[in-house]
């Protein structure tokens, strides 16, 4: 770009902020359609049971009830709730397990969907639910994935013996790990697991649906990937054409990956189809907790070898993933875990194998980081353990083994075009005060409250090219006044992407930021896009916007060239004005060009408009280092984070304020993941015990430590204005850096998240027993 950037890189206000601070923003639950019915879902009280009979005759008699549906009434084509799966290449999609129907004839977790009601209002629908009589034949449940894999365990899905839904090998296994371990000077191994972290988007799930008299379906829902959801509805569930569906995304009250799954949309559409009326289904917070979305629980053992000089020689990774009752995103999140975990360091011998297991617990899904925070908690502790054995500083050990430009990315066939991880590590270490505060391995600390310091590094995608159909499109049209409407289909779930894409559009075309209007959230208007996930939107959609914007600019310049009687390559555009490069005072406004292109009386008129596309074959990885300083109370077991430093390799921050917001927000979600968010299912009854914000503790404003964000900016050639992704990575380094800081403080390693005071005290007790007993054996 020849001209100065007037929008990119600036802290400009996002277009959706004003309606959100005035209450004008319309979320799904705020929408009222004429003649709308309320839908409610009947959920199973048992974790594992056959439904032998449903008698809805009394419920149907209740005045105001318009329809009751059960398994008998829904399409018998199985599907997966992972709408994102529609973007998998066909040969990969075949590996997805299609194991769900809109309603089930067998309950597989407490809360599984058995029947649904549409009635004139919510209270009538709820009364009707109470009147539906269901006969269950209870089956023995299994709640633990290791128990579920044993021969003779209750079978949750027919044909899936030992409840194994899938076995997955890492795509880039190489070398011979066992031989390498034999030849390695040092070996470390650690087993750990994450909890089923809940997304806790503050807006509960909601959907509206209506079939018009021509049989065309409109769905309103806070969906992260509406074009893919449309395809899943068309091809997998209802057997209609994609053109028969219009998907509208209202304002979205948070996503974090939860809205990559089909949630209440299918049952809502089914109720609307049966009644012929608009139906709205809203769920309660308690239903959301005991429901269909959480991080997949991944139990992971990582063994790593290194030589005396600190070179990593081999990594072996074994994972058991607990999908819960249905497959959903458990396969892809596990595969991504292995890619991120096994691809971060330079290493010639790699082996990753995983097993996905069903249990009678709530269904899991994808959650910010999508396997990466699951793997990092284990990997980054193994790295520290190995550094300790070799006697290396964790900072130096990591610096020695990270990859640089030209080496393979975590997606092995594609080399790294850009990487500023080294700068992230060095800057982060400096800001946390690593040299002054890290006192070396095995340094004994005294006193009730002990401080420690720890670090973690990560890589993540900017869109999953090679793994997903990384395809985005954008359209732009100019108005008569020289402003433009940008038509795009990310999911603005809070991250600020509409502003970011507008900033990219403005500087691509030479228009002012305030002259860009954004149209989104309607599949009848927007072009195909796979939505917002994989930290892809800025990078992939941004490139599509640049493609469309450059075409607009070319059209404007050509028309201006005719008008000014000068060659187009001698012109440029800045802040809505075309000017002659050699004589900037000469020029014409974009408004005049745009107006005259439409109001053209010489019969050569054409509205200035363009579409742009981008398909990414790479991941354009972004990188990050995280550093935590903690204070551990050895009497209460409470870990207090004093300071957290994030240094992120962003390429270029299109809007630094939004980038900070993503990293700070991710960090605080990571803090909850690390310390307090504990999803608990009663191991006797299968009931979800953490079913509210009182029993499932997400961080409040009083829980946040000092957070320092460092943006390492050096543009990546393939990114829009040099930008890479940032949506997910903020969460990933938090738990492992706290875990490593905990070890530095008190010499204890915890094997499962969250790292609660109880676990810290248990760890301290076990450690003191071990050190006080002469006869301790392993």
């Amino acid at each position, binding site marked *: 770009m020849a001209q100065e950037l007037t929008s990119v890189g600036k802290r400009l206000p996002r277009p959706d*902020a004003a*309606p*959100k601070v005035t*209450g004008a923003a319309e979320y799904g639950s*705020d929408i009222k359609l004429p003649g709308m019915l309320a839908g409610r879902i009947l959920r199973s009280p048992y974790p594992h049971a056959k439904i032998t009979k449903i008698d809805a005759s009394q419920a149907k008699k209740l005045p105001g009830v318009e329809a009751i549906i059960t398994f008998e009434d829904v399409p018998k084509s199985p599907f997966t709730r992972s709408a994102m799966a529609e973007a998998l290449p066909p040969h990969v999609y075949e590996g997805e397990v299609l194991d769900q129907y809109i309603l089930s004839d067998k309950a597989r977790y407490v809360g599984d969907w058995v029947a649904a009601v549409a009635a004139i209002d919510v209270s009538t629908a709820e009364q009707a639910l109470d009147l539906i009589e269901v006969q269950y034949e209870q089956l023995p449940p299994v709640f633990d994935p290791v128990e579920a894999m044993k021969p003779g365990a209750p079978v949750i899905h027919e044909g899936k013996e030992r409840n194994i839904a899938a076995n997955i090998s890492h795509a880039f296994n190489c070398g011979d790990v066992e031989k390498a371990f034999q030849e390695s000077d040092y070996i470390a191994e650690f087993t750990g697991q994450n909890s089923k972290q809940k997304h806790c988007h503050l807006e509960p799930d909601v959907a509206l649906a209506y079939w018009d008299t021509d049989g065309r379906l409109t769905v309103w829902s806070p969906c992260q990937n509406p074009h893919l959801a449309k395809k899943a509805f068309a091809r997998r569930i209802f057997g209609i054409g994609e053109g028969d569906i219009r998907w509208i995304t209202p304002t979205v009250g948070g996503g974090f990956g939860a809205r990559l799954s089909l949630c209440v949309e299918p049952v809502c559409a089914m109720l609307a189809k049966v009644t012929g009326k608009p139906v709205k289904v809203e769920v309660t*917070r308690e239903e959301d907790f005991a429901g269909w979305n959480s991080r997949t629980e991944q139990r992971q053992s990582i063994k790593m070898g290194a030589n005396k000089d600190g070179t990593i020689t081999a990594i072996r990774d074994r994972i058991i993933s607990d999908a819960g009752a249905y497959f959903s995103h458990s396969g892809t999140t596990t595969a991504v875990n292995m890619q991120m975990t096994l691809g971060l360091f330079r290493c010639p011998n790699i082996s990753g194998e995983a097993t996905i297991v069903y249990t009678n617990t709530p269904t899991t899904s994808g959650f910010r980081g999508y396997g990466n925070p699951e793997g990092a908690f284990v990997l980054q502790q193994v790295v520290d353990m190995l550094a300790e054995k070799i006697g290396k500083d964790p900072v130096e050990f990591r610096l020695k083994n990270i990859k640089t430009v030209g080496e393979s990315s975590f997606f092995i066939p594609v080399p790294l075009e850009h990487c500023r991880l080294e700068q992230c590590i060095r800057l982060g270490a400096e800001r946390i005060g690593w040299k002054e505060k890290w006192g070396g391995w095995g340094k004994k600390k005294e006193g009730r409250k002990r401080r420690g310091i720890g670090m973690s590094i990560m890589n993540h995608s900017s869109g999953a090219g090679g793994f997903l159909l990384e395809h985005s499109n954008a359209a732009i049209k100019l108005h008569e006044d020289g402003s433009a409407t940008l038509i795009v289909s990310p999911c603005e779930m809070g991250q600020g992407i509409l502003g970011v894409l507008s900033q990219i559009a403005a500087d691509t075309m030479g228009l002012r930021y305030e002259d860009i209007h954004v149209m989104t959230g309607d599949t009848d208007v927007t072009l195909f896009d796979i939505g917002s996930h994989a930290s892809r939107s800025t990078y992939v959609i941004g490139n599509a916007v640049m493609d469309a914007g450059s075409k607009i600019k070319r059209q404007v310049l050509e028309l201006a060239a005719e008008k000014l009687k000068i060659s187009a390559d001698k012109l440029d555009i800045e802040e809505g004005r075309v000017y002659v490069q050699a004589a900037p005072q000469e020029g014409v406004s974009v408004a005049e060009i745009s107006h005259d292109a439409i109001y053209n009386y010489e019969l050569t008129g054409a509205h200035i408009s363009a579409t742009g596309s981008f398909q990414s074959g790479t991941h354009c990885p972004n990188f990050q280092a995280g550093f935590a300083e903690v204070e551990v109370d050895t009497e209460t077991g409470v870990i207090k984070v004093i300071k957290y430093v994030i240094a992120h390799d962003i390429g270029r921050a299109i809007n630094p304020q939004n980038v900070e917001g993503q990293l700070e927000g991710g960090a605080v979600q990571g803090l909850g993941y690390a310390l307090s968010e504990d999803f608990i299912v009663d191991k006797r009854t299968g009931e979800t015990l953490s079913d509210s*914000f009182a029993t499932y503790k*997400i961080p409040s404003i009083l829980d946040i430590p000092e957070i320092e964000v460092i943006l390492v900016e050096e543009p990546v050639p393939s990114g829009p204005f040099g930008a890479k992704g940032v949506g997910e990575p903020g969460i990933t380094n938090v738990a492992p850096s706290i875990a490593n800081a905990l070890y530095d403080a008190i010499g204890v390693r915890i094997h499962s998240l969250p790292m609660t005071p109880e676990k810290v005290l248990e760890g301290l007790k076990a450690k003191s027993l071990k050190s006080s007993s002469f006869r301790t054996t392993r």
Partner: protein
Amino acid sequence: MIKELANFKVNGRLYEVIIEPHMLLIDVLRDKLGLTGVKYACGTGDCGACTVLVDGKPILSCLTLAVTAKNKNILTIEGLAQGNTLHPIQQAFIDHGAVQCGFCTPGMILTAKALLDENPTPTREDVKAALDGNLCRCTGYVKIVDAVLAAAERIRKGGKG
């Protein structure tokens, strides 16, 4: 169920609404008056998204029986701006990037208003203490605290509070 014709003074306007004894204030505001800036997020009083001001004090409308708010001055997010002029707290939330998904935003802003009306010169810790009952899952709170402090300064310098 005994129905009652009740008066509510919301955002400076008087409304007559037919209510029943069990009705919650959130339902009157959202369903009867169409003030959908009042957000339902938990229903158990744990998150603060449904916060409105009653006689200047923040209350959780999802736990408040509508009958108890009769004839009192209720302020929802829709009543905060003066025409097209945003309240300094609203403007500060925009300027400081304190808004992401926006679902907690109305409750946050109203709770912050109650704080600043009572304490125009809060410290960072005062702001955190006041907003402890309002959960946000997006921002990590950093920019929310920044915004409230900036709004306080703006009001002190003569911006309308």
